[in-house]
């Protein structure tokens, strides 16, 4: 792995972990379909292209001076990316922070850092507005040493997961968000990819005791590229985190992303994974309920068409008593696309009084689309309330007839019903700008069904 040029104090910590992860990846190798975890997703085409050098690293990956303008901003012509109303919006192009495209608290000019590195880094320690009190944001390489030592790579397991190891080995940029108070509003992390690049976004969200924050990650871009992202989220005692991941990559892109959530006592986390774009997509979401009274809502929505392949793996680990988790993943599959839901819930021997509900519902819109649904419960004590279920169906005839009998054309009626199916996930999102964003993305796929509210 490359040596960092940067002199920030965190560099050494990062470098040491990167090296370990790099060695681990060399041992593990690319996942193959012989592994149960990867039986549905064949990475061979990605691996071949990767090894043939199809994806280059952004030229500025190793730090200042910033990359040439054309590499940094070329794909920002992608218009669906930015979200209005964000407290801060950090834009990364091909994995590299783009300060000129980023905004903080409504200002288009980022605050100039105190440090001497010359990089524009947000500094919100003394906020002008009370609504972002207690919110601090850094890029990964500028983050304080103590935060990285305490949290970086402590949750996402690079020892056993090759793609997490690959990300960790290459992690140089991303966002570190620390919140110590109740922040009303959201932080948006936008990752834009462009043809021929590989990128390794690496994010860390730390919500301290009693803190509250909403974080939205968006992945988008154009052309064929490879995104390998990892986000770690730590919810401290009583913290409330509302997390969104919108995977809206180019249809030629490879996206392999992991979200790992660690929850302490009485924390409350909602994490939503929305996949609309991407050619080959793998989403791993894993959550450790490690403090009593923690509660989790895990929502997922994947909408695929053409030859898209979207593989969702979730793991909810009930480690301690009195935690609850509610999981709902919905899939809408058209054309020759393939979707996977593999959801595992583990209830450990000590995790009495666990309440857990898991459901996966899928809608097949064509005869050639395929969905695999594999909900799994592993319960190691008998004082729990757990249930899970899974359905695969097609659009029902009766509602379709009803809509058409009022004059609505068949294709529009179908779109309305598909939209209605997805709306169970979309409508309960707290952030209106995110709901809007998803509606827009959906209406690109379903031009006449997605405009309702």
């Amino acid at each position: 792995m490359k040596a960092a040029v940067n002199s920030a104090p965190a560099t050494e910590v990062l470098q040491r972990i990167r090296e370990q992860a790099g060695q681990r990846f060399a041992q593990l190798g690319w996942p193959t379909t012989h592994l149960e975890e990867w039986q549905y997703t064949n990475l061979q085409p990605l691996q071949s292209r990767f090894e043939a050098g199809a994806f280059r690293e952004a030229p500025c990956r190793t730090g200042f001076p910033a990359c040439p303008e054309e590499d940094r901003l070329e794909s920002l012509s992608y218009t669906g990316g930015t979200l209005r109303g964000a407290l801060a919006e950090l834009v990364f192009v091909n994995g590299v922070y783009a300060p000129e495209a980023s905004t903080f608290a409504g200002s288009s000019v980022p605050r100039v850092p105190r440090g001497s590195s010359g990089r524009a880094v947000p500094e919100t320690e003394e906020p002008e507005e009370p609504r972002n009190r207690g919110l601090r944001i850094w890029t990964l390489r500028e983050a304080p040493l103590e935060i990285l030592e305490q949290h970086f790579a402590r949750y996402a397991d690079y020892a056993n997961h090759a793609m997490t190891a690959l990300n960790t080995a290459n992690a140089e940029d991303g966002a570190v968000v620390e919140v110590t108070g109740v922040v009303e509003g959201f932080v948006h992390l936008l990752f834009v990819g462009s043809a021929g690049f590989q990128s390794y976004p690496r994010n860390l969200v730390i919500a301290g005791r009693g803190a509250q924050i909403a974080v939205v990650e968006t992945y988008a871009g154009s052309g064929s590229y490879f995104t390998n992202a990892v986000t770690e989220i730590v919810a401290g005692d009583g913290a409330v985190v509302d997390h969104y991941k919108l995977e809206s990559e180019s249809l030629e892109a490879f996206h392999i992303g992991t979200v790992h959530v660690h929850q302490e006592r009485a924390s409350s986390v909602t994490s939503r994974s929305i996949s609309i774009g991407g050619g080959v997509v793998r989403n791993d979401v894993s959550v450790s309920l490690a403090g009593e009274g923690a509660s989790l809502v895990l929502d997922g929505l994947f909408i695929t068409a053409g030859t898209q392949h979207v593989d969702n793996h979730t793991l909810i680990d009930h480690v301690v008593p009195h935690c609850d988790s509610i999981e709902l993943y919905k899939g809408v599959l058209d054309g020759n696309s393939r979707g996977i839901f593999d959801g595992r819930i583990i209830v450990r021997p000590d995790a009495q009084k666990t309440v857990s509900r898991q459901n996966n519902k899928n809608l097949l819109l064509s005869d050639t689309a395929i969905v695999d649904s594999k909900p799994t419960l592993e319960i190691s004590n008998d004082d729990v309330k757990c249930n899970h279920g899974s359905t695969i169906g097609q659009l029902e005839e009766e509602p379709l007839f009803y809509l058409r009998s009022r004059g609505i054309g068949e294709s529009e009626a179908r779109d309305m019903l598909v939209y209605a199916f997805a709306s169970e996930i979309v409508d309960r999102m707290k952030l209106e700008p995110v709901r809007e964003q998803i509606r827009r993305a959906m209406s690109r796929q379903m031009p006449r069904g997605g405009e309702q509210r």
Partner: protein
Amino acid sequence: MLEIKNLHAGIDGKEILHGLTLSVGTGEVHAIMGPNGSGKSTLANVLAGRPRYSVTAGSVTYEGKDLLSMPVEERAREGVFLAMQYPVEIPGVNNIYFLKAALNSVRKHRGEEELDALEFLQLARQKMKVVDLDEAFMNRAVNEGFSGGEKKRNEIFQMAVLDPKLAILDETDSGLDIDALRIVAGGVNALRSEKHSVLVITHYQRLLSYLIPDFVHVLANGRIVKSGGKELAEELEQKGYEWIEQEVAAGA
């Protein structure tokens, strides 16, 4: 307006209508009465084009056009409306959004300007009063969580907004209390004019006290066996359907 000739039709390959003939003129209100299993709902569903119903013989001409060859949505756009016996719940589809899309499809077909959200709301509010529906219903999902009576009133509300030339009411009165019945009848009466025709399909005479028909037909075993004026409905109410069945059997 509507000419049904020798209609043979059924569901899932089972013939239920065995040669039904009926003519409905413009501006007329016809009631079709009959016992359970006589083919009343089959008639309504065949006219609206519900899937699984098939026509094996006969013809239906609507305003000079072959109704049976039109797709479901085209029948609606041409002005045929079926108030359903069992309106389906559609979670996730907003009532007002759905109806606006429907009305604009119909208006577009007629060559009229589409209504914007504001214009549509004004129209909807006005029509809502006719059926005594609360505005809160508008922002809920289509029929979701509605009571039986609310679903029926929602059907009549949709009818009022879409302003069809031919309204078919499939047992809209069943399960309604007298207040709801009056509201439904009021909604249909508001539509009555020399340009609108109504086909009321019902088991009971009750609705016809509020919605006076010009003609009453008795349907039995898939055919119209007797036709008359509004007094026929009263006669049926007093004597029951057995009387007709005996009369038909005697005549056969």
